[in-house]
C-alpha cells in the first residue's frame, strides 16, 4: 500500500530520478535535487523542535550527511524514506546538542543568555518551535493542549491536521508506516479532545 503510494507520487519519482543522475555525477540534477529539498527540510527540522536560530545549521548538516551517504541509496529503493532517515538522524543529534546547551546554561544561570541564537532571545530559551507554529495558527486552548501531547502524537497531529499533508507524505516525514501515523494521529486527536473537554469543564 505504502509502496504503491510511493510509486504514484510524482515528486518522489522526480527526486529519485535526480538522485540517480547525481550518483552518476550529474551536478545539475544534484543541484536541482538539493535546492528542491531545502524548504521541506527546513520545515522538518523546525517541526522537530530545533530552535529558529539553528534551523539553517541543521539543514546544512543534513545536506552534508546526504552528500557523504549518497552511495547508500539504491535507485530501485524509494528515495523519501532514505532522505527522511538522514534528516531524522541529523536532527536528533542537533536536539541532543541543544538540550545539553540548555542544561549547561540552566546550571550556570542566565549569564550566558548571550550565547543563545537570535530566535531564542526573542522568544525565550524554552519556547518549542511546534508551539510556535501553533502560536501563529491555532487558538490558545488548542495550543496548550497540543503542548501536553507526547512528541510522536503531536508531530502526527501537526503533519496531518495543521500542515494537511497526505497520510503517505506525513508518514514518510515522520519515518513510520502510514498505519502507525494514523494510530498516532488518532490517539493524539483523542487526547486533544479529552484535554479540551476537561479545560471546558474546569471553567
Amino acid at each position, binding site marked *: 500500500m505504502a509502496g504503491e503510494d510511493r510509486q504514484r507520487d510524482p515528486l518522489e519519482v522526480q527526486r529519485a530520478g535526480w538522485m540517480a543522475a547525481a550518483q552518476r555525477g550529474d551536478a545539475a540534477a544534484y543541484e536541482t535535487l538539493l535546492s528542491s529539498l531545502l524548504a521541506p527540510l527546513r520545515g522538518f527540522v523546525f517541526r522537530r523542535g530545533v530552535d529558529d536560530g539553528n534551523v539553517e545549521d541543521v539543514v546544512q548538516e543534513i545536506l552534508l550527511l546526504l552528500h557523504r*551517504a549518497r552511495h547508500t541509496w539504491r535507485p530501485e529503493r524509494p528515495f523519501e524514506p532514505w532522505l527522511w*532517515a538522514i534528516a531524522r538522524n541529523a536532527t536528533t543529534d542537533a536536539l541532543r546538542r541543544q538540550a545539553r546547551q540548555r542544561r549547561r546554561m540552566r546550571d550556570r544561570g542566565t549569564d550566558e543568555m548571550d550565547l543563545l541564537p537570535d530566535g531564542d532571545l526573542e522568544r525565550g530559551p524554552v519556547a518549542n518551535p511546534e508551539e510556535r507554529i501553533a502560536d501563529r495558527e491555532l487558538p490558545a486552548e488548542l495550543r496548550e493542549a497540543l503542548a501536553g501531547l507526547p512528541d510522536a502524537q503531536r508531530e502526527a497531529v501537526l503533519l496531518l491536521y495543521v500542515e494537511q499533508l497526505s497520510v503517505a507524505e506525513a508518514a514518510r516525514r515522520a519515518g513510520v508506516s502510514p498505519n502507525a501515523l494514523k494510530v498516532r494521529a488518532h490517539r493524539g486527536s483523542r487526547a486533544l479532545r479529552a484535554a479540551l473537554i476537561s479545560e471546558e469543564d474546569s471553567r
Partner: protein
Amino acid sequence: MRDRRSTADLVAELTGGLAPVRPLPALRWQVVSLAVAWCLTGLVVAAWQGLHPAAVLDRGVSSTGIAIGLALLAGSALAAALATRIPGRERALLMAAGGGVLSLGLLLAVWIGMIGTTVGAIFHAAEDLRCVGHASLFSAPSGLVAGFLAARGVAWRPVTSGLTLALGAAAAGALLTHLSCQSEDAWHWLFGHAIGPLAIGVLVGALLAWWFERSRLAASPSTGVQENPNALELE
C-alpha cells in the same frame, strides 16, 4: 564551531566537482555475501575438524536449541548490523532485532531448562576455553566481511552497529564450533559454544562501537565538506 555560510553556498560547494559514486550493494546481496563467507569458513572447518549436524540434533533438545538459537542470532544480528548503516532500512532493522531477541530468548530458555535437569555437571575449563578460541577464530571471516560492508555504509549508530556486528559474527563462529564439537556435555555446549563466544562478542562489540564512534566523529558534518570515500575516480 563551523564557519557560518549560506545554504546556497553549501549547495554550490557540494554540486561543484561532484564525483560519481557506486551504490552500495543491496542489503540482500550483502547478507548473501555474509552467508557465502560463513559457508566457506564451514568448508574449512569441515576439512579440519569435521561437521556433525546430524549428531547435534541427535544430542537432544538442549543441543538443538543452542544450534537454532545461534543460527538465528547470527543471521539477525549481522542483518541488523548491515541494515543499521543504511538510511531508510529501519523496518529491516526492526525485523532483525526481533529475530535477535527471539534467539536470545531461546538460548536463555535452554539455559533455564538445563538448570532444572542437569545437576552436578563438571566444569571443564580447558575444553570450554578451547571451543571459545575456535569460535573466535571461526567468527573472523564473517566478522571481517560484515565489518567491510558496514564501513561502506553511513558512519552513524556506532553502538548498535558495533554490538550487533560483533555479536552476529561471534554467533556465526560459535555455530560452526557447535557443529564441529563432539562433546556430549550440555554445560560445555552452553559455556564453550554460547556464553563464552557471545561474551567475547560483546567485548569486541564495545571496542567496535568505540571505533565506529571515532569514525563517526571524523566524518561529522561539523568537519565541513569532505568527499564521499566511495566516490569513483574520474577518468
